[in-house]
């Protein structure tokens, strides 16, 4: 194969979306990926395309999330036309539910601040009206916060659609190509993977938690860490949840996903009964009907998390042409990565809008 214009390192949702966009911009792209045993958030996520609660403290991130959410329907349509795969994107708006007045009030306070900061549209829906929208809520649910921009998709199918489209767009996909070293010689990156060497003028690091190590090879500081989330899945049931809830959603095929736990567990992606039990218990309090369904699967996956929870997008100062893109919302941001970020990387580089996403924000000088 001819040497690529860009090598994207990491074949999960972030890397696939960017590679798709780069190929769409006419670039010759190689996508290097690990194998099936890689820690892969793209196969373990909750598949929300979510806006409420994103970006308090960083207006640029709130704006970016919203831009992606707005671009999602068109992105899904394009993928379907290109591959015939329906990624089941829906945007009916979404809820976070409260099991006490106190919880509802705290939610309202957070969203009010986000509304003031970034004009987030939302409303607090009290129990009487909530019963019309989500008839199966349990007696303890006092209300919820509704944001009309929220939605969800089928994320395993999204990854498959992207990879199908990548093949059609002529992207060279290289599984089992974990990267050992990256050298920079005369403006060219020499990417070494096993016995293979790829030379390219531009690279994009999209390897999730692997970006920390890869970043060091090209002068990029990528302070990300794994954060475990556990998920419980029921058998497929006839549709009864009309809206995704931040911790509970019914997939297009009928299974109900419950999740949203957070644990600092390093690179340990095992499930634990304690957390799974708590997830199920809270979910049944929200929707008692869930108690009648059989659980068919549980799993854990590792989020890719920064200190402040916001993404990092940056080009290396010392190694121009080396970019990093990392976030914990690979599904929500897939449309933005494919349609907005990739064209910038294919062109001159990141615009000034991305300055806020630099990892420099973590380098606070010591107080005098």
């Amino acid at each position, binding site marked *: 194969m001819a040497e690529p214009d860009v090598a994207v390192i990491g074949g999960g949702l972030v890397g696939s979306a960017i590679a798709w966009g780069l190929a769409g911009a006419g670039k010759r792209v190689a996508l290097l990926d690990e194998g099936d045993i890689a820690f892969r958030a793209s196969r373990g996520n909750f598949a929300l395309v979510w806006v409420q609660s994103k970006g308090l403290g960083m207006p640029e991130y709130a704006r970016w999330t919203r831009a992606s959410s707005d671009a999602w329907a068109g992105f899904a349509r394009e993928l379907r036309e290109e591959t015939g795969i329906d990624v089941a994107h829906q945007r009916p708006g979404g809820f976070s539910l409260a099991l006490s007045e106190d919880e509802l009030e705290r939610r309202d306070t957070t969203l009010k601040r986000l509304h003031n900061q970034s004009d987030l549209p939302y409303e607090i829906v009290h129990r009487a009206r909530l019963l019309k929208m989500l008839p199966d809520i349990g007696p303890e649910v006092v209300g919820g916060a509704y944001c009309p921009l929220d939605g969800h998709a089928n994320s395993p199918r999204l990854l498959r659609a992207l990879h199908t489209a990548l093949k059609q767009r002529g992207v060279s996909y290289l599984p089992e190509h974990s990267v050992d070293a990256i050298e920079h010689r005369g403006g060219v990156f020499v990417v070494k993977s096993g016995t293979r060497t790829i030379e390219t003028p531009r690279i994009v690091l999209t390897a999730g938690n692997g970006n920390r190590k890869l970043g060091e090879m090209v002068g990029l500081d990528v302070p990300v860490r794994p954060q475990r989330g556990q998920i419980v899945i029921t*058998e*497929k*049931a*006839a549709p009864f949840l009309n809206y995704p809830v931040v911790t509970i959603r019914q997939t297009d095929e009928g299974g109900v996903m419950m999740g949203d736990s957070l644990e600092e567990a390093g690179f340990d992606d095992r499930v634990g009964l304690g957390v799974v039990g708590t997830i199920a218990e809270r979910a049944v309090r929200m929707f008692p009907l869930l108690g009648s369904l*059989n659980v068919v699967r549980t799993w854990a996956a590792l989020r890719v998390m920064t200190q402040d929870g916001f993404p990092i997008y940056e080009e290396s100062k010392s190694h121009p042409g080396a970019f990093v893109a990392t976030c914990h919302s690979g599904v929500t941001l897939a449309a933005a990565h494919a349609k907005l970020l990739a064209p910038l990387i294919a062109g001159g580089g990141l615009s000034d809008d991305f300055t806020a996403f630099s990892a420099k924000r973590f380098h606070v000088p010591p107080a005098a």
Partner: protein
Amino acid sequence: MFRRLPDLADTASVTLTVDGEAITARASDTVAAALLAAGHAACRETAVSNSARGPYCLMGVCFDCLVSIDGLGNRQGCLVRVRDGMRVETQRGKRVAGR
């Protein structure tokens, strides 16, 4: 398609209904075995594509013998012993939560 082995010919029999129709089974049968013996090779339609499925592994692994038993959906027919008066229904597509 299936024939009973002759050595169990004189076991006690029970009566259950399949989609409202009475069938006779041996008291030692599982629901899946009773369905197969009565000629019901297909006992459900899958949850997503609605294609026909019937009992396959008969040991609780394949989940292809799912039926509704006495009003409760997605029961594994091969793991439930028949009972006199039991109501078995073909499961068409997804089960309904709570039923």
